[in-house]
């Protein structure tokens, strides 16, 4: 095709650019990790050091001792797990109904479902908060979890995979006298396990990283999640940069582990909207 020198030059430029961006993107990660082992003065000295001069774990110890990190970590984990499990159940159940039944108003109802994704969070933010107070859900995990637990995207996503479940399987179970719920639970659900895994990582990550809604709902400190507590560290009189970086790193670790364990599911989960469009 092309003559070799041109192609070689093109390749060099392309690699150079790709690596430049890659290094730019990786630097904040390494900077964060390195700073967790440094004293404040070393973070802010004129010659930045990637390898700490006197590495120590004091930032981590203070994070657990003074900021009760383990407690807030468990709060985040509890909310994320409850949200994920309930969301998977409700989304797969509704997705099953949309994929496997014909019923009056089905198309209209599905259109409403798609339209619900267009409602901007901040438009309903203030009245939603008023409502959560009136329902007595403020300062409770229920108040954090319930409003978003049946989000339309999950239903839309589960509908696509439920459509692949063969009708013959469902019908033969009906002849054996199984109830519709049992058909969903024992036949359809096991068949869409891969899709459930994709939705699970997505739901878990969204809940784990969520900031603004838990920020307003969870008033008392002992209930607060990691992002809320970490944001609170910024406004403090003396900002503890090493401790904040340790918190940022440890709060990211569960998602990173999940990502490297379930890479394919992650990438599919995050791009599925684009594919379906």
């Amino acid at each position: 095709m092309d003559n070799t020198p041109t192609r070689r030059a093109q390749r060099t430029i392309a690699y150079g650019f790709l690596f430049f961006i890659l290094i730019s993107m990786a630097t904040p990660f390494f900077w964060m990790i390195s700073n967790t082992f440094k004293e404040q003065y070393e973070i802010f000295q004129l010659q930045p050091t990637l390898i700490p001069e006197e590495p120590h774990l004091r930032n981590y110890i203070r994070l657990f001792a003074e900021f009760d990190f383990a407690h807030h970590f468990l709060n985040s984990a509890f909310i994320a797990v409850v949200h994920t499990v309930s969301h998977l159940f409700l989304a797969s159940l509704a997705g099953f109904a949309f994929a496997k039944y014909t019923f009056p108003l089905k198309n209209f109802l599905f259109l409403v479902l798609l339209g619900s994704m267009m409602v901007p969070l901040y438009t309903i933010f203030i009245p939603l908060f008023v409502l959560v107070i009136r329902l007595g859900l403020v300062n409770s995990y229920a108040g954090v979890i319930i409003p978003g637990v049946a989000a339309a995207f999950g239903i839309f996503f589960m509908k696509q995979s439920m459509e692949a479940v063969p009708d013959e399987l469902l019908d033969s179970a009906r002849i054996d006298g199984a109830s519709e719920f049992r058909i969903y639970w024992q036949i359809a659900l096991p068949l869409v396990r891969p899709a459930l895994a994709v939705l699970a990582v997505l739901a878990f990550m969204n809940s784990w990283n969520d900031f603004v809604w838990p920020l307003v709902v969870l008033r008392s400190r002992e209930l607060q999640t990691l992002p809320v507590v970490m944001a609170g560290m910024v406004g403090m009189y003396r900002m503890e940069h090493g401790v904040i970086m340790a918190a940022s790193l440890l709060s990211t670790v569960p998602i990173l582990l999940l990502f490297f364990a379930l890479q394919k599911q992650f990438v599919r989960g995050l791009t599925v909207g684009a594919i379906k469009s």
Partner: protein
Amino acid sequence: MGVQVVSSASIVEDRGLRAWWSRAERKVVPYVFISPFYILFIVFSVGPLIYALYLSLHRWPGSGPMRHVGLGNYTYLAGDPVFLKSLWNTVYYAIGAFIFILPLALLLALLINSTLIRLKSLFRIGYFLPILTSTVAATLIFLMIFNNQFGLINQGLALLGIPALKWLDEELVKISVLAVAAWRYTGINVLYFLTGLQSIPPDLYEAAQVDGAGTWAQFRYITIPQLRPIALFVGVVTMIGSFQLFAEPLLLADGGPNDASLTLANYLYRMGFTNAKLGYGSAIGWVLALIIFGLSFIQLYLFGAFRKDD
């Protein structure tokens, strides 16, 4: 005797009920299965959406009586310099995302997809990793990187003999917010574009090569038109996302200095939660919704999503 009659009648009735249910179950059950979504949607979205409109026509500090002010909140918005500033800032972020983040993501995707490059998954995964951090963690890292005196960027500039820049001051803070957004969101958009590029049928390119089309012609007449659906998706998602930017300016500079980084979402939060002006905050929310709906519609229209022949 009488007891027997009653019980046999109830057996008949029970049988009737069961027969009725076995006929009705498949008609009723789908509504039951989808009902949790609609109940929650009506209670936690539709209700608040209407209530927000109602609140926006009132003055209300969150307790006590509401005072009806008609469109007063909206006319006040039109002359509120802080609101106009936050609107401009938000538009600035959206434009920045469209002229900086998206072209960069497209370029990276094209390079990764080209035959020149190996190590494709290294780049794909590497660019993607930042989105796994929470906005809070990401912004906290950049808070230190952009520190006006001792941040990593200024340390780097000092090594090159360039005096420190005040990244979090009025002049540069919006650029810094965009940089945090670019760090988190470039990779996911690379993935979106790659999905689009990989779904282009290869025989289109083969046919074009047979016809003698060069690299540029192939890009112009095959890649760009074929990417249209994905570009529409990316465009709408980016627009909706940048109009709801919240945590980055809040944590990087508390919306400041002098409201220079404040977004509509930040201002709404400040009015609704800090200043207890729930009516005014709700009016900001509705303006935000109208902007988002309007721009989504325009994008769909420009990309021909309403044209029948596509």
